[in-house]
C-alpha cells in the first residue's frame, strides 16, 4: 500500500516537474520578449547594468549541485513569490504612469504575472507533495518599495525582468534535477534527502 502511494506520488511529482519545465520554458521565452518591449518602451539602454533587486534571491547560487530538492523548491518559491509581488507593483506603476497609452506592454506584463503566479502555485504543489508543504506567505512579503524616482523604477523593472529570465532558466534546471529518479531510493524520498 505504502509502495503504491510512493509510486503515485512519484508519478505526480514527475508530472508536475515536466509541466513545470514547460511552464518555465514558456515563461523564459515570454520574459525575453517582454524585456525587449520593456527596454524599448521605457527608452532604456538594453546594455545598462542594473543593481540587484532588493527582495529577490539571486538565481545564481554557489554549489547549486549540492542543494537538496527541498532547498531548490523553497528558493524557487521565495523567488517567484517575490516576482509576483514585484510584477504586480510594476503593473500598477505602468497603469499609473502610462494609463491606456501603452496597453500592449501592460498586457504582456499581466501575462507574465499570470505565468509567475501559476508557476508559484506549481511550486507549492510540489512542496505539498513533500510532507512539509509550502511555507506561509505571512511575514514573507517583500518590504514596501522605497520611494524611488521614475528613472529608478524603470531600472528596477528592468532588473526584475532580467532576474526573472535568469530564474526561469534556473527553475528549468532545478525541476529537471528534481525529476531525476534518485538511484537506489524511492523517488518520493529524493526530495528531502541528502546533504
Amino acid at each position, binding site marked *: 500500500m505504502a509502495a503504491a502511494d510512493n509510486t503515485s506520488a512519484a508519478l505526480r511529482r514527475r508530472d508536475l516537474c515536466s509541466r513545470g519545465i514547460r511552464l518555465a520554458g514558456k515563461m523564459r521565452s515570454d520574459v525575453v520578449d517582454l524585456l525587449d518591449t520593456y527596454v524599448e*518602451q521605457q527608452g532604456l539602454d538594453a546594455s545598462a547594468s542594473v543593481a540587484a533587486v532588493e527582495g529577490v534571491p539571486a538565481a545564481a547560487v554557489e554549489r547549486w549541485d549540492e542543494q537538496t530538492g527541498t532547498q531548490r523548491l523553497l528558493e524557487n518559491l521565495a523567488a517567484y513569490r517575490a516576482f509576483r509581488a514585484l510584477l504586480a507593483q510594476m503593473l500598477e506603476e505602468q497603469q*499609473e504612469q*502610462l494609463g491606456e497609452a*501603452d496597453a500592449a506592454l501592460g498586457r504582456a506584463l499581466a501575462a507574465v504575472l499570470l505565468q509567475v503566479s501559476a508557476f508559484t502555485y506549481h511550486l507549492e504543489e510540489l512542496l505539498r507533495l513533500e510532507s512539509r508543504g509550502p511555507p506561509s506567505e505571512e511575514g514573507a512579503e517583500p518590504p514596501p518599495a522605497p520611494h524611488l524616482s521614475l*528613472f529608478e523604477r524603470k531600472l528596477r523593472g528592468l532588473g526584475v525582468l532580467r532576474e526573472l529570465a535568469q530564474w526561469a532558466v534556473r527553475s528549468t534546471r532545478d525541476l529537471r534535477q528534481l525529476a531525476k529518479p534518485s538511484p537506489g531510493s524511492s523517488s518520493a524520498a529524493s526530495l528531502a534527502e541528502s546533504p
Partner: protein
Amino acid sequence: MWKNSSLRCLFAIAILCLRSLIYGQEIGSLGHPQNLKCVTHNLRKMICTWDVSSKGRHGQTDILCFKTKEKRVEIPVPESSSMMTITTNSISGTAFVTKEFEIHKKDISFVPLAPRILSLTPDFSTSTLNLKWSDNGSVFLYGLDAFWQIQILRKEVTYYSKLTHEDIILSWNWTSDMPLECTSHYVKIRCYINVTQFVGPKDWSDWSPVEEVPGKDTEPNGSGVFPQDTVVAVGSDVTICCVHAKGQQIQRMTYGREIYPMIRLSSRSSAIRVLNASASDTSGTNVVCRLSEDDMDGTVLFVGYAPDTPQNLSCETSNFLKIKCTWKPGRPSGLYGKRRTKYSLFERISGKNVSCEVNEMNRERVCGFPVLADQKTYDFVLGVSNPIGQAESLLLLDLTQRVHPKAPEKLAVSGKSSTSVRLHWFLNGSFAEIRLLCQIEVSHGHSEQRLHNVSMPGGEFSTYTAQLNALHAYTKYQFRVRCSAADHFWRWSDWSRIEEHTTLEAPPARGPDIWREKSPSGKSLKIFWKPLSLSEANGKIVSHEVSCYLLETPLEYKEVTEPSNSTEIKLGKRDCVISVVAKNHAGSSPPSRITSVELPSDNVKTDRAVAMGNGIYISWSSYPNMTCGYIVKWCHSSGSEPCSVDWQKFPSNTTDAVIKSALFRPGVRYNFSLYGCKSSGYQLLKNITGYMKELPPKRAPNFTVEETSSDSILVKWEDIPIEDCQGFLEGYRLSFAKGEKDALKPTLSESGNPELKVKNITDLTKKSLKILDLQGKTSYQLDLQAYTAGGLSPPNSLYVVTKEDCKIKETFYPEIPNPENSKALQFQKNICEGNKTLKTLEMNPCTPNSVEVVETRSAAPKIEDTEMMSPAADTTVPEDGSDSETENHVVVSYCPPIIEEEISNPPMDEPVGSSQVVYIDIQSMYQPQIKPEEEPEIDLVTTAGYKPQMQLPVSALKIESCSPAEEELDKTTGYRPQANTNTWNMDTPDSPGSAESNNENASFGSPCSINSRQFLLPPKDDEDSPKPSNVGWSFTHFFQNKPND
C-alpha cells in the same frame, strides 16, 4: 524731562538758525568739527556725523543742547534749513571749539535701513525660491513708494511695493531656470524708498545679510539628477543637472539618446541645457548621468503640450436622467497616466462639478452629468487641465432641446386585419416633460420604404402604441421605429430592430385580365387569364371559376385550380359570355367578362412592326366603330412547348403601342394579331409581324457558280430560312476581287483590296447574278452576304478561275509532261479542249509521303524568294470533281504536294547546314487527315492550271506527311520543284537516292517530299536546271546557277 529740555533747545536753535541765515555762516577750521553729514532712515530723525581735528578728540562735544562723546548724533529732522552749532569741550568741560553749521534740507540724505530677510524657502519641485521680508513701513508717517532690490546668485531683481505706515511682510517668488538642487542659491535684498517730497539725496539701503538655499552638492551624501520626473512644455529650455559624490567624475550626460555638453556648476554638480525640447515618448525622456560603466543616475522628463481647447462640445440626454457631453480633445497633450489631461464638467447655475473619467486614447471624450430636478437650462464649463496648463469650453443649453432617445425596444406588431396593424414599443427614458415624434418605417419585399410619423406625449419609461392603416392584404411587412423630441428636434434615436408581420388575406381586388380564342372549328373556346399582381390578388389565389352565360343563364361552369391560367369549354354552336372569377381563401374577385363572339373580318393585311431594341412598336389606323378598344395578341414559343398566348388591351383612342415582354428575344420574329372590340364581339383587324431587335442573318445564302467564261461568272443562290434571317431581309451583297484561296486571308470586305467590287442586290426576288468584265484565266474570290437592318451576315466565299484564252497558252506555255503513272496527276489535257462545263480539279486519292524536317539550327529570318516568282502559268487540264469544301474553291491539284521549305538563315558557304531530313516511306506512311487549321503556317497556293512554283512561304515547317489531309497542299496547282540539296547526299541511307525509297518513288517521277524548293522536274525548256542526280548540290550552288538569273 530730558525730552522736554531737548524740545526747548531745538526751539532755541531754530531761532539761532534763522538769525544765522541772515548774518552769514561760519567756516570751520583746523581742529574744529567739520564734514558734518546728516542721514535720515525714517524721515523723522536723522543721524548727523562729523569729523574733528585730532586736538579735540578727547573732549566732549556739545551740539546745542545734545551732548555726545561720539562724532554722531541722532536728532529730529528739521522742518526747514537751520543752523547747527557744535561745541567741542575738553574732558574737563571747558569749551574747546564751537562751530556752527548751516544745514539745508537738501543736504540731508535719506537712506532706508537695510531690510531683513525673514525667510527664504525653496520649492525644489518647481525650482522656486520664496523670499519673505518686512517692509518696515511703520517707521514712516505716511505711505511711500518703495523699491526692493534682490540679488540671487547671479541675478538682480527689482521689486516695487508701497509702504503704508505699517509693517507688512512682503513675499516674492522666483523660479529658477535651474533646479535648486543643482547648486546653492543665495539671496540678499536692499531697498530704495521714493520720498518725493524729500529734497535731499536718496539712496539704496545697505544689503541685507545673505540667505542661502544650499544645493544638493553641499550635502555630504547628496546626489541625483534634477529635476526629478518633471513635466515641461514642448519648446521649453530645460537645465538638468547631475549631482554626484565627491571624487566621482561624470562620463557623459544623455538626454534621450543624445549626448549633451556639460556645464560645470561645482565640483560635484554639472548640468546640461536642453533647448526647445520636443515631445517625449509615452514613458517620458530619460536623462542619464553616466558616472562609470556600472554606475549611473537618471531622471525622466516629460515634455508635452498644454491641453487644447476642447472642440465640438455637445451635450444631450437620452433619458432625462443623465446628460452625456461629448467633445473632441484637439491636439493630444502627449502626457499620459498620472500626467494625463483631466476634464471636469462644471455647471454654473447649480454650481455642481463632476470630474470626467475619460479614456486618453479615445478620439471622442465623453462625460456624464446628472439631470438636476427642475432645471431645464444648463450652463456647462468643460474644464481641462494637465501639468502644463489648462483650458475650458463653454456650452449653454436647454435640455428639452437636446433629446436623443435610445433606440426603441421591445417592438411588437399585432393585428388581425388585412389592412391595419398595431405597433408597440418601449422607450427607456423619462419623457414626461416633452412630446415625442416617432417614425415608423414600413417596407415589404423589395418595394421602397414608407415612413409614417406619429407624435405622442412622452411618458415615464413607457410603452407607446401606434396604428397603421391602409396596408395591403396578405403582405409580409417589415416595421421598425425610431423616435425623437417632437417640439425641438435634435436627433433621431437609432432604429429599433425590425419586426415582421403579414397582414391577413382579403378577396382579390379585381377580376383577372382575360382573353379567349375559338378553335378553328368554332366548337370550343379556350379562355386565358393573366395572374393577378400580388397587390391585386390580396392573398394566395387558389382557383379560377370560369362560367359561360347565355343571357344570364349559365351554360357551363368550371373551377380551375392554380396554377393553370387557361381552360377550354365547349361552345356547341352558340356563343356566350365568359365570366372568370379569381378566388383566394378570403373570397372571390369581381367577375371579368368577355364574349366568345368573333366578328367576321375580311381582307386582313399583314404589316411589319418596328424593332425598338427593348420592345416592338406597332401601329394601326383608328377604327371608329371599335367602341371598346383594341387587343393585341401574340404568342410566345419556346422550344417544343406549345406557344403561350399573351395579349395587351388598349383603349379605343389608341392607335399605336410598344409591346414589351421579358420573353422577347432579339432576332426572333413575332406575329401579332390586332383585334378590335365592339359591343357585339371581337374582330381581327390585321396581323403584324416584327422583331424586338433585328440581327444580321445567321448565315449567307448558299450559292454556286452556274457558268464561267474567260470574262464572266454567273452565280446563283438560294433563300435563307426565315429563322436564320433574324430580321427582315433587305438584300444581298456580292463582293469579288482577284484572289486565290488562302486560309489566312480575311474576308474580301476586310481585306482592303483596292480592286474589290461590290454588287448590292436589293431585289429579293433575284436569285442569280452574272459578273462581267473579268480577266481570263484569273482566280477570283466571290463573297456573298445577306443583310437585314441588323447588319451583314458572314460571307459565303467561292473561288473561281475564269477560263483562259487558249491561243496564249499554246504559244507561250506548251504542255508539260504528264506523269502517266501518277493517278493523282491524271489531269485533263487542257481545259480549253475538254468539257465546257467548269470542273473542279481535285486530286484523286493522293498518295502521300511524309517528310519530317528536324531543324537543329535556330530559327532564321524568313526569306521570300521573290526571284522565283513568275506570273507565267501553264495550262493544266482540270480534272472533274465535285466541290467537296464549303468554300467551293475550284482548283487544279497536283500531288505529291509541295513541301515548302524553311530557309534557316542559309549560310552560303555551308549549304548542307545542320538540317536533318528524315525521309519516311512515302507508300507506307499514309497519314490520317489533319485539320487544316492545325498547320496554319503552310501557305496554300490554290490556283488553277499550271503555275510556276513560286510564292513559297519560308515558314518553319515540321512536315509530318504528305497526307490526304493536307488537301490544301494537294490542291496546289501544277508543277513544283521538289528538291532539297541537303538530301541529295547519296551516302545517306534514308535519302531519296537510297535504293528502296528511290524505287518506290519512281512511280511518281520525282521525290515526293523534300526540304527544298529546287526543281526536281525542271520546266521543259529549262535545260540548265540542276539535275536531281547532282550529288552534293548545295543551296548556294543552286542560287548561283539559277538559269533565270
